[in-house]
């Protein structure tokens, strides 16, 4: 809740490509009209084959992610095998629902969950509402204050079976446009060397795109935008 002055995390997107999913999120957290954090990581690895992206109150969201990571690892160690991707999504849904009383007071946490389903051999993604409602999306999903703009960019640019490289570029572009139109979403910060968190998940697991790579991609976006 803005009046409480609690830091809020903003825009995250996820989309499927041929062989996996790409997740991306900006780095800004805001308290009301102020920037409270410039290098927050809202897209985090949940386990080897899945990740969570969070929009909403940063404190409860980060705590939820920590507990979620622990539960996945705990299950994997005790049982000797990881949960299925659907099982993980259900687990997260329970945790979001448990946060409902806090959500009613303004501490909403709305994650995106995405990963590579080893049983089906494809990337899958889900978004959630504050009541724990769990919705599997076919191609892409966006959440947070800049989600309208980011989601539109992906909707227009998406094609089924696109490559990983194209998916990363599209996610980077989506965050760029969200940052351009939404004051709570942070754009790439070349001055401080802070770039969005972008990661892909495929059969070999989580792979975060490094900042040097993103710097090149954003340079291309800058060229394109300035030549419009």
């Amino acid at each position: 809740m803005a009046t409480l002055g609690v830091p809020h995390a903003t825009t995250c997107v996820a989309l499927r490509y041929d062989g996996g999913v790409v997740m991306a999120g900006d780095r800004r957290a805001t308290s009301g009209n102020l920037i409270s954090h410039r290098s927050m990581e809202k897209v985090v690895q949940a386990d080897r084959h899945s990740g969570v992206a969070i929009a909403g109150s940063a404190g409860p969201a980060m705590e939820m992610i920590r507990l979620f990571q622990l539960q996945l690892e705990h299950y994997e160690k005790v049982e000797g095998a990881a949960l299925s991707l659907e099982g993980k999504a259900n687990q997260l849904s329970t945790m979001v629902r448990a946060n409902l009383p806090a959500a009613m007071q303004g501490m909403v946490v709305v994650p995106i969950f995405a990963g590579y389903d080893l049983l089906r051999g494809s990337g899958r993604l889900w978004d959630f509402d504050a009541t724990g409602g769990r919705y599997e999306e076919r191609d892409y999903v966006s959440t947070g204050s800049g989600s309208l703009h980011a989601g539109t960019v992906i909707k227009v640019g998406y094609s089924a079976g696109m490559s990983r490289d194209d998916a990363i570029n599209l996610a980077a572009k989506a965050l760029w446009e969200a940052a351009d139109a939404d004051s709570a979403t942070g754009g790439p910060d070349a001055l401080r060397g802070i770039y969005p968190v972008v990661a892909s998940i495929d059969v070999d697991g989580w792979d975060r795109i490094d900042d040097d790579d993103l710097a090149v991609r954003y340079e291309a976006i800058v060229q394109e935008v300035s030549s419009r």
Partner: protein
Amino acid sequence: MSMPFYVAPEQMMKDRADYARKGIARGRALVAMRYQDGIAIVAENASETLRKVSEIYDRIAFAGVGKYNEFDQLRVAGIRAADLKGFQYSRDDVDARSLANSYAQMLGNIFTHEMKPMEVEILVAEVGAESARDQMFHILYDGTVVDERDFAAIGGDAETIKTRLAEGWSDGLDFNAAINAGIAAIAGPDREIPAGDLEVASLSRGNGRRCFHRLDAAEVAGLFDTTS
């Protein structure tokens, strides 16, 4: 009114110890030893699915011999304690020594207070940031803790196996050499253990956050090719 026969405490303890030792001696042995990148563990285990060696935490592994249901109960308790501690405080606060102590408490209590002692021997190993800080704790059915510096053997005929291992082991072995020394020590001069009856795992410093790695059947078979 019938009175129970008087049994001297010494006799009672001796009977229990004999009972536990008999149960443990029936089982196949396992060995653990330091190698250049961490700790290698080899177990003779005919089962493909019921494990003797497993992951407890980022840098800690567990190995048990004796009655499966009993050491598995200890394994799960260890994972739970470690995960809880790491979540509550920090991942850096989880260490093998305190885990070994709580195992010793549990086993000691059961040995003195319950009808039947646990027929198990367990090993808790932790890989340190450098090899000087690698640790192994050998915990007996009555709660006795022994810390081992370079290598350990538990299970049936452990003393003989340990003597053989002392001959085959040297400081700074690579992984393959360490595993082969372990296999030779378990098998002895007159026997060959088929690859399918071996369970091999390592705690390796270079393995990222979760140091534990279990070799799959193909990798174990691959180790064998180099020996013959």
